[in-house]
């Protein structure tokens, strides 16, 4: 985490999130995951993220590229390194830790 923090101080302009959510049809878990994700993004990453939803039932060939096994999977493409969060994203704290997002309203101690 110290390294991450150092990286952030050096390149604050890369403070941008590119996210991909892999789902397979409109299952309950997928719908829940998408709803949860949109909620967190709007709360913590307003204007600093791009979210792409990929339905593997429509584009199955895309599963191989990101090594998708579990559904739903959220992939953080940017910033590197790639992180994956699987499940319906119901636990906000774990999602934020997983995406390395500092919750808004909590000033970063430097």
């Amino acid at each position: 985490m110290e390294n991450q923090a150092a990286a952030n101080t050096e390149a604050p302009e890369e403070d941008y999130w590119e996210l991909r959510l892999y789902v397979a049809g409109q299952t309950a878990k997928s719908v829940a995951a998408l709803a949860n994700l949109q909620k967190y993004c709007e709360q913590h990453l307003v204007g600093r993220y791009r979210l792409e939803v990929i339905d593997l039932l429509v584009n199955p060939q895309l599963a191989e590229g990101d090594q998708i096994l579990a559904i739903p999977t959220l992939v953080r493409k940017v910033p590197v390194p790639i992180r994956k969060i699987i499940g319906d994203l119901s636990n906000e704290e774990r999602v934020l830790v997983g995406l390395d997002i500092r919750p808004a309203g909590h000033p970063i101690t430097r």
Partner: protein
Amino acid sequence: MLPKAPSGIDGLDEITEGGLPKGRPTLICGSAGCGKTLMGIEFLVRGALAYHEPGVLMAFEETSEELAANVASLGFDLPALQAQKLLRVDHVHVDRSEIEETGEYDMEGLFIRLGYAIDSIGAKRVVLDTIESLFSGFSNQAILRSEIRRLFRWLKDKGVTTIITAERGDGSLTRQGLEEYVSDCVILLDNRVIDQITTRRLRIVKYRGSTHGTNEYPYLISEDGISVLPVTSLRLEHKVSDQIVSTGISALDEMFGRRGFYQGSSVLLTGTAGTAKTTLAAAFAQEVCQAGGRCLYFAFEESPHQLIRNMLSVNIDLEAHVREGNLMIEASRPTLNGLERHLVTIHKLVRDFQPTAVVIDPISNLISVGNVNEVRSMLTRLIDFLKVSNITGLFTSLISGSMQMDTTEEGVSSLVDTWISVRDLEGVGERNRGLSILKSRGMAHSNQVREFIITDKGIELLDVVVGPTGIITGASRLVRQLQEQAQEVSARQELARKDRELERRRRVLEATIANLRTEFESVEEEFRQLNNEEHDRQKGQVMDRVKAARAFSPSDTSTPNNQQPNS
């Protein structure tokens, strides 16, 4: 009858009676280094090449490149198969550190990937290697277990023949104790080291809806892939030949009712050390080649050159046949390989060389590689294999002098058709070699122990000499022969003397006969003389009377009347 998908793996289809269950999952489990992945890949490659069934390999542990490099040495060209759309390799990378879990999830992504890979090339075969890697990537075991169950179901519904590999666990077939219950067929691979020699074994633990071989079968990973070695003729129904092959020694041929061995039979040649087993075997090999056959000679004691040189000293020229390509000498130390490797080597060479006869010299050396049971089972397989192929097999075996004659160490005596025993006949101060036929199935044979000697012209069986205490050999034989010669000479002389005596008698008699004849002739002469004289005298009297009658005729007419009674 359950439909089966032939694996194309050497021997496996015989044990499984046709192959793996078609459209169903099969589990291959075993510890590290057993060849699970290789068996899976071979299943796909053979399926693609021999049965035109495209396959998907989902590799959880190695990348596509690594796998291709690993099997390239076996002649499997995975990139080419991928290019021809006969194979698709999907490397699944699972890294715990990258993955955060929150809430409910399922493995639908895996299904979609696999489904896409299958559909893209129309695959009929799937290999999942090794699915338990998933357990290290995901923490929620309950989900994984139910998802793997669902995966097996899903694969069945897809109708693809699947192989799942799994690492062997403690006390159970797999670590997770799950796959073996949801698979329709379970093949257990085992890698055992006994006395520093590794043997790989395969066993079919279960096969739903089909009978199968239940034994442990040795298998090998050779240059051509995996070979499983089943007993090829479980039912003993091979066809037999009525042809006869000579033993290479005419006097030995004479001892058999039909002057040799049956083609395709197996011959065991046992003997103690130094009883010329190899020489007899080499004589047979030479005979096979001279008769236009092909012979494969496995020498476990001598190098080919040594064998050729040694046999040349007894006028058996093997080198000429080697040059002509009718004879192949394959020499190796028995300890070089495990038994199964030897067996596979023999199988492979027999297939390649197509011999009419195989000599293994000696089989007793193989004991050093395995225990008695293993050797016996290997030899059973070998003998069966040769019999089915109608190849005459000659095996030599060293037996220790103290052992009973009726049980060779390997216990192969009941398997072989002909058993020749050579042994030392040790007498006072000398040792001689004796040869006898213990059995010969399907033909009469001599019951005599024949002494034989090895000269620079080859092996010679000596005539049987029966002495006062039985058959005699060696020096006693020589003594006996000298005695006989002396007797014969004196008998001959006696005979000649009698002949001469007879001749003398004959001459004496003939002389006597000649004398008598001469005597008789003079007597005859004398008689003839007298006779003639008498004749003449009577003639003279008649004439005189006629004269007298004429003188008195004018006066006395009664004279003719008087004369009539006289005439």
